[in-house]
C-alpha cells in the first residue's frame, strides 16, 4: 500500500513568465485534452461511474444481476439504520478497528522516527526492517499471522508457554474479545513503517538552527516539543492520520482471509458485510447503501490527506 513512497526530491514548482507560447494555442489545447482523455475515461468509467451507479442502486431492491427495476426510495437506508443490528455491529467493528489503527502504528511509528532522528549508525537498516512488511501482500501477511496465532503450533502461544505464561495462551482468532485486536496487530506490523518514514521525513525538514536557537534562548525540552516539533510536524500528522483513517475504513483482506468476519460476527467490518450482502445474500441494493456509507466515512479521512497532498499546484 505504499505507492506514494517515491524517491524524487521535493522541489518547489517553478513559476515562469507567460510568453507567447503559453497563451492558449488551440492546437496545443486540443492535443493536451487528447493526451489526458484516456486517463480521464478510465478513471470515469471505473471509479466515478460505478460510484454514481452504486448511489443510484442504493435506492433499489436489487439482486445485483437483473436490471434495476424495483425502486424503493430510502428503504435500504431505513432498513440498515433502524432494523439491521448486523449493520450497526459492522459499524461498531469498523470504528473499533479505526481507533486501533490510528493509534497503535502511528504512535510506534512516531517513537521510532524520534529515535532514528538521532542519526545513529544503522539508521537505514532499522528503517528498512520496520518498513519491510509494506512490501508484502496482505494476503501473505494474513497467512503469516494466521500461523503466528495458531493455537498449538503458533509462535505467540508457544512463546507464552515458554515464558511460563501459558495461562494467557488463547485461540486468538476464535475469541470474540481478541479477534479484532489480534488482526489489528498484524496490520499494525505492516503500517508502522509508513508512519515511521513520513514522520522521519517531517522531522528531517525541521531546521537544526530553529531548535538550537530556541535552546539558546532558554527553551526547555518540553517547550521545544510543544512549540517547535509538534507544530512543524503538522503536515506529517495530517498525511499519516488522513491516510490511516481512510485505509482503516477500507480494511478487508486480512479479516476476510483470517476469519471471514467471525467468530460469529465479532470481526465483521463494513467491507466484509458489503461483500457478504453482494455475493452471498444477493442483496446488491442493500450492499450499495453500505458502499455509500463507507464512501462517506472514507472520504472524511481521505479529504484531509488529499488536501495536504495537492497543496502544491502542479502547473508550471
Amino acid at each position: 500500500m505504499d505507492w506514494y513512497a517515491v524517491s524524487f526530491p521535493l522541489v518547489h514548482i517553478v513559476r515562469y513568465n507567460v510568453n507567447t507560447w503559453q497563451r492558449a494555442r488551440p492546437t496545443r489545447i486540443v492535443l493536451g485534452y487528447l493526451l489526458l482523455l484516456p486517463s480521464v475515461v478510465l478513471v470515469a468509467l471505473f471509479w466515478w461511474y460505478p460510484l454514481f451507479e452504486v448511489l443510484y442502486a442504493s435506492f433499489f431492491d436489487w439482486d445485483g444481476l437483473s436490471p434495476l427495476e424495483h425502486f424503493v426510495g430510502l428503504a435500504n437506508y431505513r432498513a440498515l439504520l433502524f432494523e439491521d443490528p448486523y449493520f450497526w455491529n459492522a459499524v461498531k467493528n469498523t470504528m473499533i478497528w479505526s481507533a486501533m489503527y490510528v493509534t497503535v502504528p502511528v504512535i510506534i511509528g512516531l517513537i521510532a522516527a524520534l529515535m532514528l532522528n538521532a542519526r545513529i549508525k544503522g539508521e537505514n537498516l532499522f528503517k528498512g526492517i520496520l518498513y519491510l512488511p509494506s512490501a508484502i501482500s496482505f494476503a501473505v501477511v494474513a497467512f503469516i499471522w494466521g500461523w503466528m496465532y495458531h493455537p498449538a503450533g503458533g509462535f505467540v502461544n508457544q512463546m507464552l508457554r515458554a515464558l511460563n505464561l501459558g495461562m494467557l495462551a488463547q485461540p486468538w482468532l476464535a475469541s470474540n474479545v481478541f479477534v479484532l485486536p489480534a488482526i489489528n496487530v498484524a496490520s499494525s506490523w505492516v503500517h508502522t513503517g509508513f508512519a515511521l518514514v513520513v514522520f522521519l521525513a517531517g522531522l528531517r525538514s525541521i531546521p537544526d538552527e530553529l531548535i538550537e536557537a530556541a535552546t539558546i534562548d532558554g527553551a526547555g525540552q518540553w517547550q521545544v516539543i510543544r512549540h517547535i516539533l509538534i507544530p512543524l510536524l503538522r503536515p506529517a500528522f495530517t498525511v499519516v492520520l488522513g491516510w490511516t483513517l481512510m485505509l482503516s475504513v477500507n480494511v478487508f483482506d486480512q479479516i476476510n482471509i483470517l476469519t471471514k468476519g467471525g467468530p460469529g460476527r465479532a470481526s465483521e467490518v463494513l467491507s466484509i458485510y458489503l461483500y457478504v450482502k453482494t455475493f452471498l445474500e444477493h442483496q446488491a441494493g442493500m450492499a450499495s447503501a453500505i458502499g455509500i456509507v463507507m464512501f462517506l466515512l472514507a472520504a472524511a479521512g481521505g479529504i484531509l490527506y488529499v488536501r495536504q497532498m495537492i497543496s502544491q499546484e502542479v502547473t508550471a
Partner: protein
Amino acid sequence: MSAVATPILLWRTLGRYWARTLLYIALITISAVWLLPLISVVFTSLKPEGEIYATTAWTLPRMPTLANFLEAWQTVSGNFINTVLITVPSSLLSVAIGSLGAYAIARLRLPASQLLYFLIVASITIPFASVIPSLVRLLDSIGLLNTIPGIVLVHTAHGQVIVIFLLARFFATIHEDILDAARVDGCSTLGIYWRIVLPLSGAALAATFILQFTWIWNDYFKALVIVPQKANAPITVGMTLLAGQYAGKWHIRSAAAIIATLPTVAIFLGFQRFFIRGVTVGAVKG
C-alpha cells in the same frame, strides 16, 4: 535538518553515553520483534512435516528441506504465472497512459486542468468495496468478468490516480528553460514529452512503475471480486484457496507464501531508497 532535535532532548536528560545505549537497545528490540513473524514463516517453510508441531516456531529446522517449496510450486505455479500476466501489463499500461495525462496536466496549461487533477487525485478516497456491486455488473456486461484482461483494465484505470498524482508533480518541477530551448529548436509538443520530459524523469518513472508493480502484485481484494476462480486468479487469491486442500500443512503453505512474496520483497530490498526516501511528497511542507 533536525538531526539535533532528538539528541538534544535525550542527551540533556540522560547524558550522551546512556542515551545512545538506550536508543540502540530500543531499536534492536523493536527490529527483532518486527523480524520474528518472518523468521517463523521461513523456518516453518524449511521444516519437514514431522517437525512443525514437535518443535517451536523459532527453532531452526533440524533437517532443513526444500521439498516444501517444490510441492508448493507445483500447486501455485499457475497462479504465480497469472500474477505475472496481470501485473506486468497493468503496471506498464498505467504508467504509460498516466504519464501522458500527467504531462498534459503539468505542462500544457489546459483550461480546467487543475479541476481534472483534483477530481482524479480525489478519487483515491473512494473505497474499492463501495463500487463493487456496480463494477461487477459493468464488467459482466462487457464480457470481462472472470477474465485477466478485465482485471488488467481495472488495475490500469485505478492506477491512473496515483500515477498522475506522482508524475504530474514531478513533471511540474522540470525547469521551463529546458522546454523553451527545445521549443525554439523546433521541437513539437509531443516531441518535448518524448525527447525531453521522459528522459529527464527516469528516476520518477522507475519509482512510479515499481510502486505500481508492487501494489498490483500484492492486490487481493480486486482479484477476489473480479477473478475469483482458480484458473485466472493471481497467487494472492490462489494461496488462500490452498487453505482447504492443505489444512494443517503449514510447512507447504509457508513455502507458498514465500513464493508469493519473494518478488516484491526482492524489489524492496533492491530499491529500498525508491520506496522510502520520498514518502515525503506532500507530507513535509504545509
